[in-house]
């Protein structure tokens, strides 16, 4: 029997019992649809997350304040005020880091007189703009004279401009922050968001001004870039800060440190691990679903073989060899699972598209995406399920004695 004859025969047999075929393949449909959908959601989320990470660039690194463990060693107790201006000066001397930019975060209302709001207010140095790849649209960035002279100037993101000075030119206009009046000297290009923080809704002030406004003698964050090797930079930074903060931590136990160093690459890796975990979980669900679907298929194929015993006898009488019969029933089982797989993929794609439409309303970065490899693997696994669970019924059919099969009532 030719392959086309086998396929035709399988299609005829399955279409003769459409309702039964549909119900039988339901398990496979659900399994493959869920794989397509879930890996599609995973791919969309990965797109969103990588988009957030990639805004900062792969060389971007950040030092956050660490807390130290409860009742931890004395050297880790300093907690919130652990990052100092002296740390920044020491870091600037390292050869494996560049663009060291200290940051003081200010929580305060901002007002333009008419408009009021709470954009993120950041006191920093000019290097911060290059660390975050922020570019100027108009005016100027903060410069060293602003810092040295503690000038009340501000650089704002486009969303701040739109919120506080709608329709007007923000340059030269005033913003009130914590009782001080700042002149807007620069407007940034739109940069989107990084780590789910809107970079366009920020007000940047000179670090020296922020320090005097808050009276804060420690830093909220230190931003920097590595000069080639993220791990080497990280090791250098950790060693330096531990030495400066008198922390004994030869085992590199993050709980002992009073700071946390993160890199974009690390974040990407972390999301990669989460994504891998998710994929493994979905694969497990799909495998269970395919096994359940496969058992259903085996059951129905055994019933089919019994129902069609006379037909098997007839085909043998007409010259079918045992392998012809085996292949015929195997083709039916595979056609069943493969069709179920294809329907599952289509349903999964439809649901993934609907979800991306819905989520896109609240999270514009969420785009429609699919995991092609997962879809191909799911279809191949569905076909394999047909082979695996179809082989026993097909083998039984092929071994039927033609005379007994013809007499079967």
């Amino acid at each position, binding site marked *: 029997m030719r392959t086309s*004859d086998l396929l035709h025969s399988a299609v*005829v*047999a399955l279409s003769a019992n459409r309702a039964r075929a549909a119900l039988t393949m339901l398990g496979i449909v659900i399994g493959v649809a869920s794989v397509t959908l879930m890996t599609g959601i995973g791919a969309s989320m990965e797109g969103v997350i990588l988009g957030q990470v990639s805004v900062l660039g792969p060389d971007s690194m950040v030092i956050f304040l660490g807390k130290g463990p409860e009742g931890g060693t004395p050297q880790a107790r300093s907690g919130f005020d652990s990052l100092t201006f002296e740390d920044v000066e020491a870091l600037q001397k390292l050869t494996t880091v560049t663009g060291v930019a200290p940051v003081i975060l200010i929580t305060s209302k901002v007002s333009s007189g008419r408009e009021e709001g709470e954009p993120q207010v950041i006191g920093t140095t000019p290097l911060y703009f290059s660390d975050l790849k922020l570019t100027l649209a108009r005016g100027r960035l903060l410069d060293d004279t602003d810092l040295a002279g503690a000038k009340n100037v501000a650089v704002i993101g486009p969303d701040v401009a739109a919120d506080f000075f709608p329709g007007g030119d923000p340059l030269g206009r005033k913003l009130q922050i914590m009782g001080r009046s700042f002149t807007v000297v620069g407007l940034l290009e739109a940069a989107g968001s990084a780590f789910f923080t809107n970079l366009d809704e920020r007000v940047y002030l000179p670090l020296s001004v922020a320090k005097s406004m808050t009276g804060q003698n420690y830093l909220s964050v230190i931003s920097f870039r590595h000069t080639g090797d993220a791990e080497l930079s990280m090791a250098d930074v950790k060693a330096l800060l531990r030495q400066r903060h008198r922390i004994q931590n030869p085992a590199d136990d993050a709980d002992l440190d009073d700071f946390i160093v993160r890199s974009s690459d690390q974040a990407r890796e972390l999301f990669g691990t989460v994504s891998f975990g998710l994929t493994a979980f979905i694969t497990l669900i799909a495998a269970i679903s395919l096994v359940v679907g496969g058992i259903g298929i085996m059951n129905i194929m055994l019933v089919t073989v019994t129902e069609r015993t006379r*037909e098997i*006898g007839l085909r043998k*009488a*007409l*010259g079918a060899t045992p392998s*012809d019969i085996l292949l015929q029933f195997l083709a039916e089982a595979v056609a069943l699972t493969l069709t179920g797989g294809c329907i599952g993929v289509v349903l999964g794609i439809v649901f993934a598209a609907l979800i991306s439409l819905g989520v896109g309303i609240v999270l514009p970065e969420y785009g429609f995406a699919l995991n092609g490899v997962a879809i191909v693997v799911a279809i191949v696994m569905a076909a394999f399920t047909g082979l695996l669970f179809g082989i026993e019924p097909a083998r039984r059919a092929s071994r039927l004695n033609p005379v007994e099969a013809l007499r079967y009532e």
Partner: protein
Amino acid sequence: MKDHLIQTRALSKSYSNEGVVTPVLHGIDLVIDDGEFVAIMGPSGSGKSTLMHILGFLDAPTGGEYLFRGSHTSSMDEDTLAKLRAQRVSFVFQAFNLLPRATVLQNVMLPLLYHPTIPPNEREQRAKKAIDRLGLTERSSYFSSQLSGGQKQRVAIARALVTEPDLIFADEPTGNLDSASGNAVMKALQELNDAGHTVILVTHELTTAQHSKRIIRIRDGRIEDDATDFQRIAAGSRENLK
């Protein structure tokens, strides 16, 4: 010397079930040549269907020899026997055995799926020719469930004919038919025989057997009579009835 189409020597068959051996055929010696129209006759349980199954390569004998065109069939494997069924013989069954979900044309084309030498592009043409020969051209797109019993059996004959086999077996072909349809079916088989096909008919009805040219009577697994003298056979049948 030319080989016989069929030759059996001391052919026997017995079935064993849970250690109980039931003999069905005993020492059948038989020769059938090309072009014959033979009826194998006998009451139920006489072994006539078993003999047909063995001669048609559907079953294997447990003793003796079966030579088909001079070749021993006992040493043949299952695939070779399937090939012989596909190319050399065909069957017409009492219960028609048509595929209910297939049209007349698809049913008649079915044996060609398994024929090793007929190319796929000739299947439809050959099937249409066979359908035409049985006068069913107008019914070729009908499903078998839409046909009368007589029409179904004629479709089965067309299916038996489509591979141009050496030998057609007809197992009680009129058993499920009224007399008019039965006569039409027997007439069709006679026409096939007239056209050169060898036909072996299995029946328990003398009136059906009388359409053949030779009647082999079997009783209790043995050939009781093998004759072309129908008057003698008819007398024998009446004798048996008594």
